[in-house]
């Protein structure tokens, strides 16, 4: 009897006996994610479920990421086959208004300059000894686009080229830096521009856009992507589907579902499953630190690329382009555009850059997905995927 009670108590103490340093550090990391999400409001939609997934997966004797476990089931159901990131893209498309971009299409070029970080980070990651596939996955943090990072990295997981555990580090880095754009970008914007350049007033883009053009736009982009970079068609196709549903105006229920229910459910499951991949022994490595360092580098270079194109444009236009607009050429929408507006007004109270910045920002959304699509197509051409 005494032996039975002792054995029973031993069973209750199993969890405590298996509590090791890895568990404690990962629980602290989960706590850090909760702090950022709850107390600081940093990307709470993603960081809260990622943090909870991390918590669940790292408690001693947790079996949630074992075959049949709930987190593993979510992972296999929607991350392993890349369904959840694509469903989130439907929602992003439904939420995006391309009117400022269509009114001033040249702003789309900022969306290309804002991807410079992807390719420079790739070179740096290769120099640091990352495998080619890992380097590509890390470089996509420069797309400033969480679902793109998860999509590309999972493609390599599916091919057995990178570890599942790396997806968690990449996703957390991508979403954290996206949220930190208002802290990362302003010093770079100020460093690279003069006060005179920052104060440049830009006239209203003014041009109205017809509904027919707004409806044709997602179809044209889908066809163009399908022809030039078919490997990225799932990404661009889902964004444009969401946008087409919205601008067509004939399926408001579907557009609302894409923007709300579908995006919300996919975000919850994606966050939990990604958090579940953050197993302490695989996550707490030098490689994870390097991923975070490279992610920061990628976003800094994105901003540098956009602002430098803005400066070139400033010179070529005879001082009519405010180079700050270039910083909005990334995919963090609409945060980057609002930041440009705030920064522009700081130096000239009469400055209203928001619509121009929104055009560059939606250009950044298209640019980030296009860059990933082109990169995947080049990799296919090189025989890597």
């Amino acid at each position, binding site marked *: 009897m005494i032996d039975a009670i002792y054995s029973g108590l031993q069973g209750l103490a199993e969890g405590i006996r298996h509590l090791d340093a890895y568990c404690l550090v990962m629980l602290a990391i989960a706590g850090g994610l909760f702090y950022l999400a709850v107390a600081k409001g940093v990307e709470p939609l993603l960081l809260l479920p990622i943090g909870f997934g991390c918590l669940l997966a790292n408690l001693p004797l947790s079996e949630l990421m074992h075959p049949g476990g709930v987190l593993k089931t979510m992972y296999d159901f929607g991350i392993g086959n890349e369904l959840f990131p694509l469903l989130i893209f439907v929602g992003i498309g439904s939420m995006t208004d391309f009117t400022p*971009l*269509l*009114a001033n*299409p*040249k702003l*789309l*070029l900022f*969306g*290309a*300059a804002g*991807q*410079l970080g*992807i*390719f*420079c980070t*790739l*070179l740096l990651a*290769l*120099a640091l000894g990352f495998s*080619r596939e890992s*380097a*590509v996955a890390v470089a996509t943090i420069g797309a400033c686009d969480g679902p793109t990072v998860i999509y590309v990295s999972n493609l390599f997981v599916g091919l057995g080229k990178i570890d599942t555990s790396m997806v968690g580090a990449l996703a957390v880095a991508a979403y954290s830096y996206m949220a930190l754009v208002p802290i990362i970008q302003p010093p770079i914007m100020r460093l690279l521009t003069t006060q005179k350049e920052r104060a440049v007033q830009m006239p209203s883009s003014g*041009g*109205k*856009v*017809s509904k*027919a*053009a707004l409806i*044709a*736009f997602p179809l*044209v*982009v889908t066809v*163009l992507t399908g022809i*030039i*970079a078919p490997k990225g068609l799932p990404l661009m196709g889902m964004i444009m589907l969401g946008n087409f549903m919205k601008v067509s105006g004939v399926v408001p229920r579907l557009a609302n579902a894409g923007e709300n229910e579908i995006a919300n459910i996919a975000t919850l499951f994606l966050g939990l499953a990604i958090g579940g991949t953050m197993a302490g022994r695989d996550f707490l490595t030098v490689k994870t630190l390097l991923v975070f360092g490279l992610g920061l580098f990628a976003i800094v270079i994105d901003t540098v690329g956009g602002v430098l194109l803005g400066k070139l444009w400033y010179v070529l236009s005879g001082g009519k382009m405010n180079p700050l607009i270039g910083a909005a050429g990334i995919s963090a929408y609409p945060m980057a555009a609002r930041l440009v507006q705030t920064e522009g007004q700081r130096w000239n109270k009469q400055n209203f850059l928001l619509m121009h910045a929104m055009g560059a920002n939606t*250009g950044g959304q*298209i*640019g980030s997905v*296009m*860059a990933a699509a*082109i*990169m995947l197509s*080049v*990799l296919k051409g*090189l025989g890597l995927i």
Partner: protein
Amino acid sequence: MSNQSFGLTLLLVGMGGTLLTLWLLTLIIRVLTTLLPPPKPKGSKPTP
């Protein structure tokens, strides 16, 4: 192919391809907005 060549290939083809594709898209948007202009506001007189 060395890692350096691989990285430079992706930098040139990837960044160049992205720039070229988005530039092409700006041209397409211009054509779209020209072919599909916004309706003129009611009450405006037609230009002679």
